[in-house]
């Protein structure tokens, strides 16, 4: 029974199993609704970005009566100032999206930094940062905005800041949890035992693992930010010099659009907000699902394994 084998001849598979396409493609295949969300959101963004050139009419020129009915030249009618609704929608979407994205950026930067720092360093740092997070969690948005508007005046900038500092907490939590788990992975420990500094470990090993989750979280935060902006504008706390979707709804509300029967003044902006938020949610949700393999619940399914006809004595190939 003495067999001694020497050099290991390594057989490396010439065709390793590579998933076709990238991460995004895989995600969309799993949840086709994400594709719908992506397309719709892209269209909205495109429309908003190109508003100055695509808008059919001028934003400030009156082209008809108050609450003019929808017609062939004005598919969505006119608002309380006689301005074309389609034009208004495009410009308003622009503002809403700008606020949404900018606030999300602020929120991501703060939340991401705090999350990574707390998760990576743990201990007292973690404790302190999490307490701060908790305090921010309980601040109500509307009163804060009222205070800010009262003291510094309502402006786009202020709204972005307020929403930003209210939204970062959930991001921080999620990122912190992920960083904590990545930190315990063996390859991170190995890097530390090699003598790698914190910066290197965070940038090279932790962030790449955390990035996908951060992206998913970002997309979902955009949805919330836009909703927040709409709500605040609706309450009259938004920038009075700019038109946003929330402001459109507020205007219509103030000027009794409903009792005039001018549904075209309220429904389109509301619907657009809903569509944007829904698209973001679909995309973000799909990304999150893709990142969380533990969400597989096949074993809970009512379906069982399938039967096949007998194969017959082992086939020999030639």
């Amino acid at each position, binding site marked *: 029974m003495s067999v001694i084998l020497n050099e290991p*001849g390594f057989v490396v598979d010439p065709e390793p199993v590579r998933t076709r396409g990238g991460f995004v493609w895989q995600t969309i295949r799993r949840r086709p609704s994400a594709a719908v969300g992506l397309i719709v959101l892209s269209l909205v963004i495109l429309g908003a970005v190109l508003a100055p050139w695509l808008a059919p009419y001028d934003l400030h020129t009156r082209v008809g009566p108050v609450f003019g009915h929808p017609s062939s030249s004005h598919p969505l009618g006119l608002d309380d100032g006689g301005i074309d609704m389609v034009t208004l929608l495009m410009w308003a979407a622009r503002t809403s999206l700008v606020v949404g994205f900018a606030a999300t950026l602020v929120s991501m930067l703060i939340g991401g930094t705090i999350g990574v720092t707390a998760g990576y360093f743990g201990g007292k740092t973690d404790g302190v940062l999490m307490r701060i997070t908790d305090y921010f969690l309980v601040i109500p948005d509307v009163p804060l905005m009222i205070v800010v508007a009262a003291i510094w005046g309502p402006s786009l900038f202020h709204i972005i800041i307020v929403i930003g500092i209210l939204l970062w907490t959930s991001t921080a939590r999620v990122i912190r949890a992920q960083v904590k788990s990545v930190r315990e992975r063996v390859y991170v420990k190995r890097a530390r035992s090699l003598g790698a500094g914190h910066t290197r470990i965070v940038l090279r090993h932790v962030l790449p693992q955390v990035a996908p989750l951060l992206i998913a979280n970002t997309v979902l935060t955009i949805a919330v930010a836009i909703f927040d902006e709409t709500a605040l504008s609706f309450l009259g706390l938004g920038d009075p010099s700019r038109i946003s979707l929330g402001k459109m709804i507020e205007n219509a509300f103030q000027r009794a659009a409903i009792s005039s029967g001018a549904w075209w003044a309220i429904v389109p902006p509301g619907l657009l907000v809903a569509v944007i938020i829904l698209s973001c949610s679909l995309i973000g949700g799909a990304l999150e699902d893709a990142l969380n393999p533990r969400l597989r619940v096949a074993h809970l399914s009512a379906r069982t394994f399938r*039967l096949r006809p007998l194969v017959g004595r082992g086939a020999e190939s030639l």
Partner: protein
Amino acid sequence: MSELLQVEDLHVWFDLQDSGELHAVQGVSLSVDPGERLGLVGESGCGKTTTALAIMGLLPPSASVSGRVLLDGKDILDGGEASIRPHRWVDIAIVFQGAMNALNPVRTVGSQIVEALELHGRAEGGQARLRAGELLESVGIPAQRGTRYPHELSGGMRQRAAIAMALSCNPRILIADEPTTALDVMVQAQILELLDGLCRDFGLALLLVTHDLPVVAQLCDQGAVMYAGEIVERGSVDDLYHEPRHPYSRLLFAATPDLDGKRGEVASIPGAPPRLDRPLQGCPFRPRCDRAFAPCAKLRPRLQRVGEHHAAACHLNGVPEVAWT
């Protein structure tokens, strides 16, 4: 020959994400007599756990199965879940891999055994609790420990509890999938001794699925070596060790270090097992075999008798006067 369990030409395919299938089990046939202990041995990916799960009907919806699983001569696989279900736990029970970590953490150990009893209508209420206590004692856990939660017990204790649970409905066959893999060697010895005793006392048949050859050598009478989804050799454990008739079995034993023997003389097998998502041509072990010759590349060997109760799937067995050692 009244076989208790007979598996005939079992095939299992798993659907793969993008497309295609993984042919995880490729025509496995085995049989277990009452009270017999069969060790199903192989390395990771060979299909041994899948075979065990197929026998129990515990495969996921992404799997498709063909073949026959005969219990007392009756095929329990042909009706799918419906035909296997009445026999699960009652005739065949399984202790899963990592069972010690699969106990429900929010219920006491005793209550989980009671649950198994009540689910299968074996006992209820006070009767069930008594029986649970008896079962715990039979695996070496004092009955009072039944009021503990899994996290309060050590790994070895939890594994014993999992075994007690498997025995709750007095099955005739126990399938144990890597029962001692995550345990220390002393605890492993305790669990193996326990399994040995239980099988003797209750006349249980044992299907031991493991990668650990010495464990099979010590606990089982019969062994079957699996590679790339099929059984490449089967026979008594004595035959497998002393008269292997398949290069993989021989090399696998040679690659397992023993306490005796000179320093450094342990074999390794170059390369890696073949991918099972593609059809295989010829003998699946050929790329790694040290005795491959002409027919190996073209013809897939079948299991052939090479002795009494000893069969191997290797073309070398058809060649007279081949030196096997």
